[in-house]
């Protein structure tokens, strides 16, 4: 349901003024045509001295001290004690399950207008532009549903193992939760994250370019433990089919080698509590480093087999079209990638001076080794600080000091993982895969900081 109703019962375009289908088509077709002239003009204007003086004149507040001393000699927020300093606060357990501050209501997962026609087979994007550290709050975790989400009674949920096993087995949640558990931080990224920008810039903020990305601490049982209980043929059973228990009964083929390495988990915990219903409560597969569609939610069954399964989402979708017309099938790893979250598209820097450039880096092949940041569109780079913890197949947070001189700047980040692989530039990616691919866009992202402080999503070449 995209539209909402206002007080008087009239239709308003809100809260996000969605594009009409015609506008969406226009965005994509103009994007396709490249808009080179427009872009050349825009950038020329942004760089020229006249434009700079105009921008400065029209936005004097941008250069003003943002924390001035008022004429009365002090900040009333200091001089006049507020109610919370002079009154009695609220009692314990007023909110039995605590919520974020009411001042944080701008942080929401959001749909991208025009992307899908139903909400049940759709995505919502996590607000990366406003998050800290590496953990995604569970309520802001991105969503991808294939046939709607459910809140399933865990006492009635069952997990089955069959196929090339000595004995097909069934487990209750009680039994799975009795087994030795592990807790690990991992990122999950949809294979189609950043898909809309494969050809050209299409969306304004990092929430919509990179927001099909989240990171949580997952708790569960290594799948190999359960397969051994069933007496799985680990030698000939090279492939495992994972299947969901919801309407879509999502299926995906998982390599046995990743399972025997102990990395694949049958998980029930997420950030200290149970999985959220939107994320597969009460049981989901965790397949570190691979695209989110493999992390089957509402997991009801795995089957051990000697051949891959060519399920719908590995035979029709989640396949990567190459310029030759061939599709890459079973392309599952999310390769090394990073993005600056501040400053990022749609934000406004209010003043010249010091900023902490911050962002996220991750790799489906292991740990992040280093991240470099450029503020001049990739000509010169400085190595960013990687904050701890730096974990395998998890988000890593990087920071870099930056003093903005008020001039246009193009900000980029470039990550390298422990296999020595370096995140590619758009040109490198397109040289190999063309521009019509949908999935696995891990190119370096560029944000243009304009003189008026507003940040734009751009691509350089």
């Amino acid at each position, binding site marked *: *349901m*995209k*539209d909402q109703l206002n*007080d008087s*019962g*009239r*239709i308003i375009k809100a*809260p996000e003024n969605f*594009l009409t289908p015609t*506008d969406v088509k226009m965005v994509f077709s103009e*994007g396709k045509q490249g*808009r080179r002239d427009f*872009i050349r003009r*825009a*950038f020329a204007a942004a760089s020229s001295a006249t434009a700079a003086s105009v921008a400065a004149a*029209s936005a004097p507040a941008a250069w003003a001290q943002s924390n001035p001393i008022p004429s009365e000699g002090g900040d009333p927020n200091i001089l006049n004690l507020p109610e919370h300093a002079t009154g009695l606060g609220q009692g314990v357990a007023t909110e039995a399950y605590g919520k974020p501050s009411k001042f*944080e209501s*701008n942080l929401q997962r*959001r749909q991208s207008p025009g992307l899908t026609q139903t909400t049940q087979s759709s995505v919502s994007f996590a607000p990366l532009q*406003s998050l800290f550290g590496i953990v995604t709050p569970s309520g802001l975790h991105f969503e991808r549903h294939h*046939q709607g989400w459910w809140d399933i009674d865990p006492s009635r949920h069952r997990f089955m193992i069959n196929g090339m096993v000595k004995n*097909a*087995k*069934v*487990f209750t949640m009680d*039994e799975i939760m009795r*087994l030795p558990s592990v807790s690990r931080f991992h990122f999950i990224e949809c294979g189609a994250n950043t898909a809309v920008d494969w050809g050209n*810039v*299409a969306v*304004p903020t990092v929430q919509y370019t990179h927001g099909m990305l989240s990171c949580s601490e997952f708790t569960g049982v290594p799948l190999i433990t359960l397969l051994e*209980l069933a007496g799985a043929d680990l030698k000939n059973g090279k492939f495992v089919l994972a*299947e969901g228990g919801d309407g879509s*009964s999502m299926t995906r083929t998982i*390599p046995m080698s990743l399972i025997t390495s102990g990395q694949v988990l049958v998980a029930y915990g997420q950030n200290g509590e149970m999985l959220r219903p939107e994320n597969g409560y009460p049981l989901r597969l965790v397949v570190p480093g691979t695209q989110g569609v493999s992390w089957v939610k509402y997991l009801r069954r795995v089957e051990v*087999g000697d051949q891959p*399964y060519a399920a*719908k989402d590995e035979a*029709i979708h989640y*396949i990567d079209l190459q*310029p030759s*017309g061939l599709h*890459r099938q079973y*392309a599952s*790893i999310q*390769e090394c990638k990073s993005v600056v979250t*501040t400053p990022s598209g*749609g934000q*406004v*820097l*209010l003043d010249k001076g010091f900023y902490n450039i911050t962002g996220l880096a991750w790799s489906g092949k292991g740990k992040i080794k280093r991240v*470099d940041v450029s503020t001049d569109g990739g*000509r*010169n780079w*400085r190595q960013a600080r990687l904050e701890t913890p730096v974990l395998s197949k998890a988000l890593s947070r990087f920071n870099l000091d930056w003093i903005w001189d008020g001039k246009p700047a193009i900000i980029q980040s470039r990550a*390298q993982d422990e296999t020595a692989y370096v*995140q590619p*530039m*758009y040109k490198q990616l397109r040289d190999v895969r063309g521009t019509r691919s949908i999935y696995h866009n891990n190119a370096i992202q560029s944000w243009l900081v304009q003189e008026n402080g507003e940040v*734009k*999503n751009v691509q350089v070449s």
Partner: protein
Amino acid sequence: MFKFPKIALLLTLFLTSLTVVAQSTKYPGIGRDATSKEVAAWDIDVRPDFKGLPAGSGSVAKGQDVWETKCAQCHGIFGESNEVFSPLIGGTTAADIKTGRVANLTRADYPGRTTIMKVASVSSLWDYINRAMPWTNPKTLSTEEVYAVTGFMLNLAGIVPDDFVLSNKNIAEVQQRMPNRNGMTTAHAMWPGKEFGNAAKPDTQNVICMTNCVTEPKLASFLPDFARNAHGNLSEQNRTVGQQKGADTTRPEGNTDKTSATPNTFATTSPVATKSTDSKSDNKAVLALLSKNLCSACHGIDKKIVGPGLTEIAKKYPGKVDYLAGKIKAGGSGVWGAIPMPAQNISEADAKIIANWLANEAPK
């Protein structure tokens, strides 16, 4: 007496080793053997080699009947519709059926990629229709219906003739006519294992360069101006404090009133303006009902998806609560177009609430 213990010992050793190798007994009391009935109920997957495919058959003619009652609402009469989902049929040719490669996939100017252009394995169609279709009632088709609908789709794409009866006996021959059967490759480094003997080296090789790395950067793509506000007001999508604010995209660029976004304004800071929602609560409840009963899968608020937009209905039937409640439950066809609305499994109470809202309160 001498031989027997030795054999018994060997036997015991043999059995023990078998158990240890094949089946862990480390966690006694956890899990139990599945019954064959249980496995049969859940083990519904069908592989490209047709392992798991139940015996049966279904005709193209029967498939057309099923299609028109259960599939066409979303996918269009000919599987061509993109109103709800991506188109299923179109873009393949008789030549593709011969070569097993869909020629249009090499064309950058070809506007879309349908399911039948992409899918290499006919099993993927059968398996998915069987497990997940129809959209609002997955797993309710009979085996015959799944064969029939699969056959009908193949017929729409010119892969099988009008009088064809698809069955477990001839599906392997049909596989040899799939237009994109030779269109897949696993020659890439993005499968997390060695099961396909796939490439080990990634396909891009960027290097770390720190100074004077590229010539003057040229902007190659730029968010078009008209898309700046396409995702709503970005100032309402960023935290209200911090080193930056969201751009107020309801105003032209450069005219942003900086004082309103400055963190230390001396007015009392108030939470982000959230429009009063109290008087909206009735509408919200109705919207929730529409979503719960899957009405919104076919009816947009003010625009047609499959069926007419709700405001269109409201405009046409002011005050007609009983008529609307009846239509909601019984469905119908012809009033708004040829595609029928099936009868809905909705409670009397819910139907009344929605009908009353449409007739009296909904925006006209």
